[in-house]
């Protein structure tokens, strides 16, 4: 870690339909090689925050800077920035008409302009890494939820992103498949991947998080290192929330 921010979020506001104030002045950052875990009750704005980081949602005001590029500036080439940001969704969102291999190679060819051979080589390595090399030629419908999510992680990793965003990657999974996905994420964290993870998997947070943010009602209520966070949170609301999800 060299102290420079890959993600720098400054005073971001986001309102939906003029009434739903999803983000009310959020500031946060993720340093290179750092793992930031975001927790908070449902509807607190976690997904919206992640989506603002890769421009899937436009901020109303405030600034998001990714590795030096202000993506909230008016003339930014958002496609170019997004190629540098991987995101893994709760619902996987694999392309159902493509095999696992094709899911991972598509953007490499279309966006990164890699040759078919090169893209497939990268893909096979990644599928090996996420533990499903034998599923390369299967369609998403032929894979379990855990396998699909691992393909989705490989698909994002194939772009060599500067940061990986995860939006509750295990909450749509059957319990017995959660570990296989978390293991892959832990490996990434150990390798020094910069990560911003929305998750209530406290085992993962303890093992991988450098810092934890607790959000409520569109604001960051508390932020701290993972040990401080679990052992001695400052705020009553944080304590209440933790006691709920820890048991």
């Amino acid at each position: 870690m060299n102290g420079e921010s890959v993600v720098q979020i400054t005073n971001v506001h986001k309102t939906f339909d003029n009434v739903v104030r999803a983000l009310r002045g959020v500031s946060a950052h993720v340093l290179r090689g750092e793992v930031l875990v975001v927790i908070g009750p449902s509807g607190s704005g976690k997904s919206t925050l992640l989506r603002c980081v890769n421009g899937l949602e436009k901020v109303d005001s405030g600034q998001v800077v990714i590795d030096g590029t202000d993506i909230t500036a008016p003339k930014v080439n958002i496609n170019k920035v997004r190629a540098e940001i991987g995101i893994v969704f709760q619902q996987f969102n694999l392309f159902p008409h493509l095999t696992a291999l094709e899911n991972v190679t598509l953007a490499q060819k279309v966006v990164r302009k890699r040759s078919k051979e090169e893209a497939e080589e990268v893909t096979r390595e990644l599928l090996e890494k996420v533990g499903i090399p034998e599923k390369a030629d299967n369609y998403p419908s032929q894979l379990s939820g855990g396998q699909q999510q691992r393909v989705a992680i490989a698909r994002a990793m194939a772009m060599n992103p500067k940061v990986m965003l995860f939006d509750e990657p295990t909450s749509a999974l059957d319990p017995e498949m959660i570990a296989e996905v978390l293991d892959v994420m832990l490996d990434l964290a150990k390798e020094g991947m910069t990560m911003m993870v929305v998750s209530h998997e406290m085992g993962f947070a303890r093992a991988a998080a450098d810092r934890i943010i607790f959000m409520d009602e569109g604001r960051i209520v508390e932020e701290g290192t993972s040990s401080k966070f679990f052992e001695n949170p400052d705020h009553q609301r944080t304590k209440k929330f933790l006691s709920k999800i820890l048991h």
Partner: protein
Amino acid sequence: MAVGEAVTKKRKSKVAPWTQALERVPWWALILILIGVYISYSILNSETYHDTFLFLSEGVKTTILLTVVSFAIALVVGLITGFGRISDNIIVYNIATFYVEVVRGIPLLIQLLYVAFVVVPLAVQGLNAAGSFLVNLGPAGFLAFVGEPLANVNIQNVNMLYRAIFGLALGYGAYEAEVFRAGIESIERGQMEAARSLGMSYWQAMRYVILPQAIRRVLPPLGNDFVAMLKDSSLVSALAVRELTQLAKLNRARTFRSFETYNTAVFLYLAMTLVLSIGVKVLERRMSGGK
């Protein structure tokens, strides 16, 4: 009550085996096949039918050509308009919607007449004006070279077949636009988001992620519309295009043999739509089987 029940039961148990079998026979298809065999036989053996068939078969070619070309253009128009209907650009959206709403609100026959006798002549006038303008810009070689032919396009020379194709394509384009729009919108939002967050542009995401999935869903309605257009192409007889219906009318006027003429026309239309429907089904099955 009890008596009635007993009677029905009795009838059922006694007569059921072979009436049920009879009920399951697709009589309509059998009758259709018999008529088909009768007409085919007549075409081969009866002088009148044979003559009618030869006269109408030119029209079959024109009908097929008309339908295939018009539908191909309608697909392109429909796809482009469909994108317009989901566009964030309000100008594009409004132009596309105007076209769709107008076309869907008027009868196809009127559209064909309007295109043939209003739109095309106006377009030709426009071309003439543009041509003269270019010629008048100066004697310079290139401008005159382009301008001369434009200035001299004569409305008389624009074949009714072309006008009919243009009319059918515009008429069906509006419906295909709605088919494409619905197909694209039926693909869940997460697909576009996943593609865009990998760095693909909107059009790359469309091309590689959304359309391949949408095409599978729109194939059945497109297939239906193709068959429907084959039938609707009979309306261009109003433009005196020598397709099947027009030739049937001419044949009747020529021979006064209404019965044979229209039997043959019906037979030919049915043969075409049946073959097409089967083709569409096969294609659908192939596409959905490929996963």
